[in-house]
């Protein structure tokens, strides 16, 4: 365990008396949760089969709570590096609003509770993948990879992609090729998305000693890797249409959005900016990548549900 978290356990016992419910809510990383909920809900809408609205709500709730639990456990383990970065220094643990033990207990309770609940209310295939998603994020990404390799984001991207598998399994009870294609889309989308952010937050990661690609291999190599992953991502988004799993309404959207994504990735790869204030293309790609994923999954749902 890390130093700050240990200090928080011993030194902020009285501070936690003043903890608000908002501090516990902040442990769940609600902004990250939004994307997880959205992609999982889209997978549930696209998956074959019918689910009672109450059970569908329970499934989404469990996936959201599991993502929150993983976020809480991540913050529990990373309190020391969170304290060093401007972006994360105000999180409840580094700010001394909560004790480390409380965050750990909160994360473990929510994690086990969400897995048990989705298993009992829906099915145990979804529960299995939900447990895998939590363990992958906490053990593989946070504890094992994040501080050891610049490929942390690539492998950690799987953690953000598992909720799609959980959502699909919650409805159909299995995980066919189409579900794994959606998994692959989020998996390949994660590196360009996070590395675009890491390019203009590089100084923060360097200060915290996190081996993000811009810190270990420099800005030009990161830009090259962004372009490489974008080249892999865009064909995969079109593949469901080519394989007859989705209609051309989705295919057309994927091609249009993919062309825009590639154009921005090329702009980033040609950029030579070194100061964060000059990194216009990088910031543009980061913001667009969020819209890209939302529109892509939205188009998939529309393609399946709205069109004949």
């Amino acid at each position, binding site marked *: 365990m890390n130093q700050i978290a240990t200090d928080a356990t011993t030194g902020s016992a009285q501070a936690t008396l*003043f903890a608000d419910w908002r501090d516990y809510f902040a442990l769940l990383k609600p902004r990250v949760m939004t994307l997880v909920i959205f992609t999982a809900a889209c997978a549930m809408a696209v998956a074959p089969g019918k689910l009672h609205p*109450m059970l569908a709500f329970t499934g989404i709730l469990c996936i959201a709570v599991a993502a929150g639990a993983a976020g809480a456990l991540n913050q529990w383990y990373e309190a020391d590096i969170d304290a060093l970065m401007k972006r994360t220094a105000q999180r409840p643990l580094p700010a001394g609003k909560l004790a480390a033990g409380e965050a750990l207990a909160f994360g473990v309770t929510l994690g086990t509770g969400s897995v048990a609940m989705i298993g009992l209310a829906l099915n145990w295939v979804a529960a299995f993948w939900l447990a895998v998603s939590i363990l992958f994020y906490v053990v593989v990404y946070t504890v094992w990879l994040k501080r050891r390799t610049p490929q942390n984001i690539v492998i950690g991207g799987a953690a953000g992609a598992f909720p799609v598998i959980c959502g699909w399994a919650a409805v159909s009870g299995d995980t066919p090729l189409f579900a794994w294609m959606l998994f692959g889309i989020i998996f390949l989308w994660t590196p360009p998305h996070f590395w675009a952010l890491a390019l203009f937050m590089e100084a923060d990661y360097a200060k915290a000693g996190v081996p993000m690609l811009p810190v270990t291999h420099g800005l030009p190599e990161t830009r090259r890797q962004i372009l490489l992953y974008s080249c892999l991502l865009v064909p995969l988004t079109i593949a469901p249409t080519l394989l007859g799993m989705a209609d051309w309404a989705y295919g057309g959207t994927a091609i249009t959005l993919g062309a825009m994504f590639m154009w921005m990735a090329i702009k980033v790869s040609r950029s030579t900016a070194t100061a964060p204030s000059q990194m216009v293309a990088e910031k543009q790609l980061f913001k667009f990548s969020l819209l890209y994923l939302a529109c892509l999954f939205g188009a998939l749902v529309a393609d399946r549900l709205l069109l004949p």
Partner: protein
Amino acid sequence: MNSDPANWTDAERTAFYARRESRNRALGILLFALVALFFGITVVRMTDQINAAPKPVAAPTVPAQ
């Protein structure tokens, strides 16, 4: 902030009570929502099982001789 509650100032005591109240309210709402959710899930699952159960077939009536 004093570590000993006996040494708290009025402002600290007020802040402590306000935060504790907000935590308790949030916990109460959460527990009530969980009870409602479990009840809803139970009703839906039981209804599914009742609908899936084979319907009793009426015994064939024997025509009067």
